[in-house]
């Protein structure tokens, strides 16, 4: 369904040019979940945004490769085609729900906006918004949808973000650090919810995270990004239990284990990674 081939993305021009993503390739089949794991600055968020060409150009430059979605190159689409793709076929959930929702519009109007763009045939908008909120586990959705984002907790805000992303039945959900801004218990709830939804509706997912600890139960495959390149790629079980690349090994070594008696947390020694 989605196939990224030798994609390269740069930022800036001339001497200040930075190669943020270097010649990466991966693909996601219908209903499949790929976890893109890497540290801050490794290029994983840039990759996620690039899938619908959401990066600000300039400074971003798509310097090579192609992004094929249903056999069409996203990089060659017209603005109108891109708008149909965004939210309609590929939807996003971002890291910080408190700033990612517009503070001056109600939850209902923000979800209704997505519906009006991609599913204009929906006549009873209120009922559909309530149904979306119910799907992500929001209690009393017909009342909550008239709330403004600041009236909701962080976990509920993220549920609203997910509801908004799912409202238009996308084929691919790009979840960019969806649980990073949330505390650990809420993190677990949100991940459970996403797992549940994935079982209910057939939807592919690109889960972008720095945390190997959360991908276990949810991702089918893992791609590890380091300094703009994919250094390791395989099934989740394979990568978690038998990592090949030294960076992946180091990253997995950093996950704190329950019952472990160590006084210092493991860190990564970059001098050995080349």
């Amino acid at each position, binding site marked *: 369904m989605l196939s990224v081939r030798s994609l390269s993305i740069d930022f800036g021009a001339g001497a200040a040019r930075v190669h943020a993503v270097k010649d990466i390739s991966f693909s996601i089949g219908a209903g499949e979940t790929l976890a893109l794991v890497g540290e801050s600055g490794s290029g994983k968020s840039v990759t996620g945004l690039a899938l*619908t060409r*959401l990066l600000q150009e*300039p400074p971003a430059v798509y310097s090579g490769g192609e992004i094929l979605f249903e056999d069409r190159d996203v990089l060659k689409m017209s*603005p109108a085609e*891109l*708008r*149909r*793709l*965004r*939210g*309609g076929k590929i*939807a*996003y959930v*971002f890291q*910080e729900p408190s*700033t*990612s*929702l*517009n*503070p*001056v*519009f*109600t939850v209902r109007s923000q979800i209704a*906006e*997505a519906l009006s*763009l*991609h599913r204009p045939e929906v006549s009873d908008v209120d009922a559909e918004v309530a149904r979306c909120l119910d799907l992500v586990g929001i209690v009393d959705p017909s009342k909550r949808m008239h709330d*403004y984002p*600041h009236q909701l907790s962080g976990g509920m805000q993220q549920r609203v*973000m997910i509801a*908004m992303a799912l409202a238009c039945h996308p084929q691919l959900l790009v979840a960019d650090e969806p649980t990073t801004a949330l505390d650990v218990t809420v993190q677990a709830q949100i991940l459970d919810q996403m797992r549940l939804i994935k079982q209910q509706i057939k939807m592919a997912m690109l889960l972008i995270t720095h945390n190997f600890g959360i991908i276990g139960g949810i991702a089918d495959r893992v791609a590890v990004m380091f300094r703009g390149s994919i250094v390791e790629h395989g099934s989740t079980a394979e990568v978690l239990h038998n990592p090949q690349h030294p960076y992946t090994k180091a990253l997995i070594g950093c996950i704190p284990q329950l019952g472990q008696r160590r006084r210092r947390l493991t860190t990564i020694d970059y001098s050995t990674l080349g």
Partner: protein
Amino acid sequence: MFSYLLRRILFFVPIVAGVMLLTFALFFMVQSPKAMAHRVLGPKATPKAVELWLHNRGYDKPLLINRIPEQPWYDSLFISQMRRLATFDLGSSDVTGRPLAEVFRQGALPSLLLTVPAFLAGLVMSVGLALYLVFIRNAAADFIASLLCVALMSVPVMVYVIFGQYLVAQVFNYFPAFGFQLNGWSTAKFLLLPIALMIVSGLGADVRLFRALFLEELGQDYIRTARAKGVSSAVVLMGHVFKNGLINLITLVVASLPFLIMGSLLLENFFGIPGLGNVLFTAIQLPDFAVVQASVFLGSLLYLGGLLLTDVCYAWADPRIRLH
């Protein structure tokens, strides 16, 4: 909401009293009431005429507190004036004796005819231009427009006035360069030039400010969310950016509303428009303390009212703000 408004309006009383006390102190620190009488009546006035002038206007009373035995302490110039103002009785001019309520009513119309169109047109133009510049941001036209704005800002208002009067009025003879006559639609010919000058002199700074304000909104996370939903650039700008920018815009705009009625001191003088700015300017020169005092009184009330209105508008535009 109601108790909030009531509380805020109660606070007006000590604030206005403080402003009045300061104005009073500043005015009579510069000159005694006697010196004022001499300036108004001329150097040849007899001591008797001066005394009569002072007595008729109450200036023969002690300034702040009456310490004369057998007289009530509050029978002073300042306190008796405050008691009069508290009933919204503005009194009458020290010089002409005309009731000030009438003077201000007459002056308000020319002032508003000048400032309201200039304000509204200027606001629409600067917000529209700013939104357009944000829409085409980073393009060459955006850069050139920014340069033009700085140029517009850098020219002093006086230069606009002098060149406007010279070019439009003298050389091309489109409008009269000076004067004012309230006469239906033909009043416009006296006002178009000062209105245009008022817009031009403020446009550069406003466009730059609003552009910066909207650009800041454009970088917010929720704008990325809107784009990720497939919202078009124009709708992102008019819906998401504008509604959020509005909150900041309100502070700048609503607080300036009261000044519209006070008129434009400079332009009214240069174009001979008999508005409130002109009234105040003449009163300071004469000097006519009654007019200065009444202007400051009304001005501070209007200003406080404007600030209150700003806060009410805030609550209306931003759901995160509640007044209680």
